[in-house]
């Protein structure tokens, strides 16, 4: 834990959307995330970088409830997430995109988006769910956002890898999360797809907090408000992209000389 980080915490404590404090998880003696503190502002786009095995994906897993913390606290809008089940965390406003695009291949793009619409989430609610004009409108607007407006009725399995990534982002957008977590959103994308994704993320980040895991430094530069570097389950450095890039410890373990 670095002193500058602590100072920062005190300064803006009231405004944070997400508080991660003393978070630790150990798998059979291996501590993947070690007494980690992380604070994300409202409306902030935070990028988490770090070498393989640094605990980046595990951190997202912990926040969204996929993995249970050994100790520590995760608070979002003053709700303690560590003891909630995954769907409750989603309903509290946290959305998660997985590393490999996780979409319903057997359904159409439209159905993928529609299933993600936050209404009719109970068994009987799902039975009574009707495609009302507001649903159609939301689906079409979201499809527009993720560059898939003319592919709505196509089966999702026919999309390219990059389009599947967008579709999953779109499915999150349908949920209107206040905190959106994306695990390597531009992996496997072409250069032009990356550029469009930068534009997409900057557009959608304006009214929500985001945590993005990414390796592509060029991409990170274009989207990050602030960068956190993880190493061996701990925060190694945190700050603006320039500050982090010039930090000798970061250069040592991650960026290379």
């Amino acid at each position, binding site marked *: 834990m670095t002193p500058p980080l602590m100072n920062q915490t005190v300064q803006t404590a009231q405004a944070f959307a997400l508080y991660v404090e003393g978070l630790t998880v150990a798998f059979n003696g291996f501590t993947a995330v070690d007494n980690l503190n992380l604070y994300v502002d409202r409306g902030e786009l935070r990028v988490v970088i770090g070498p393989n095995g640094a605990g980046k994906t595990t951190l997202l897993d912990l926040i969204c409830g996929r993995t249970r913390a050994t100790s520590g606290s995760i608070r979002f809008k003053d709700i303690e997430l560590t003891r909630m089940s995954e769907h409750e965390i989603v309903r509290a406003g946290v959305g998660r995109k997985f590393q490999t695009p996780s979409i319903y291949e057997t*359904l159409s793009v439209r159905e993928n988006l529609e299933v993600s619409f936050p209404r009719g989430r109970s068994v009987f609610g799902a039975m009574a769910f009707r495609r009302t004009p507001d649903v159609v409108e939301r689906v079409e607007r979201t499809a527009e956002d993720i560059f898939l407006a003319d592919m709505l009725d196509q089966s999702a399995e026919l999309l390219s890898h990059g389009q599947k990534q967008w579709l999953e982002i779109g499915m999150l957008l349908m949920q209107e999360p206040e905190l959106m977590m994306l695990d390597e959103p531009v992996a496997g994308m072409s250069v032009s797809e990356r550029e469009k994704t930068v534009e997409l993320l900057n557009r959608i980040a304006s009214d929500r907090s985001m945590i993005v895991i990414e390796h592509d430094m060029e991409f990170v530069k274009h989207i990050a408000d602030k960068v956190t570097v993880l190493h061996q389950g701990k925060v190694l450095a945190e700050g603006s992209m320039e500050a982090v890039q010039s930090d000798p410890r970061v250069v040592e373990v991650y960026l290379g000389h």
Partner: protein
Amino acid sequence: MKTLYRNLLGGREGAVGLAVLAVLIFAVFPLALDVFRLNLIGKYLTYAFVAIGLVLCWGYGGILSLGQGVFFGLGGYCMAMFLKLEASTPEATAIQSTPGIPDFMDWNQLTALPWFWEPFHSFSFTLLAVPLVPCLLAFVIGVAMFRRRVGDVYFAIVTQAIALILSVFIIGQQGMTGGVNGITDLKTLLGWDIRSDSARLVLYFVNGALLFACILTGRFLLSSKLGKLLVAMRDKEERVRFSGYDVAGFKIFIFCVAAVFSAVGGAMFTLQVGFMSPSFVGIVPSIEMVIYAAVGGRLSLLGAVYGTLLVNFGKSYFSESFPELWLFLMGGLFIAVVMAFPNGLAGLYARHVRPRLSRRAPAARVAAPAGPAPGAASPAIPAHAKPTEAA
């Protein structure tokens, strides 16, 4: 009205499929067959209830239960207990050492009716118990398994164990359950002789009507968002969870629906065949029921009915001609279907018959684009093709 047509009947193709089955069950069979044969078909159709339930929970929900015989049996036993009590009046059982209790209890030296038999004096209680007792058991199993995220093969093994446990329990508790013979000698339902030809005919039609009610319920469920979610859960359970759905709740629900369908079938079996025994509860019948659904096509509600009929026709033909070989043939059939036609009869229909039909009638193609299978749910969005289900 239009939504109803699309969701329940499945558009034009679905409606035609239903109509064909209705003509077969309500006109062709009753006109062509004598009451004895018709009663046999009625018996087969009670298994179709189980197969329809399996289409929902296995085909769409991805939950393979190898213990559906448990629910079929429980439904059947509930009905049999009521009928047995009606047949065991003190006058009819005057020669017993304890008159007024079922004969097998007397043979086993029981002198009073066990407490859980008492409410089955009431017909209205029985009508409620037939669906609710199996539903409650399915709910308990579902909560215990799905809340702990037990799935796939482990779930199948657990359901099979439950089938074994229940059949062993029934056989072991001879005095209370009738043991291996089951509950036999059932005569009347509220004074109406169920063994008469007229009663058998009426029961056959009631059975058929209930079967259609189950098919339509299944269609409604599959055409709603719930159906989409079942498919989504089968493919990417994690994603559904992270879209804010309680996956376990949906699994428990569809498993309970399948249990209730099976129980209705079981009760109709008891009424039409006149007895219920543990040989419909255990592992073998439970697996046979999965075969019906697999042969018919596990994604097709109507296919499940045809699959059940086909396998049972085959069973009665081959078991009469080659009694020793039948089980091997049945096993071979299952392996062949799973390997060569994973979507069963409905899959064959979708691949070979439908293209020809639509070539002949291009209008039909517009009305029902690539619907999954003759009996499967219509896509809620009829304007686009849904290739995967039929592929």
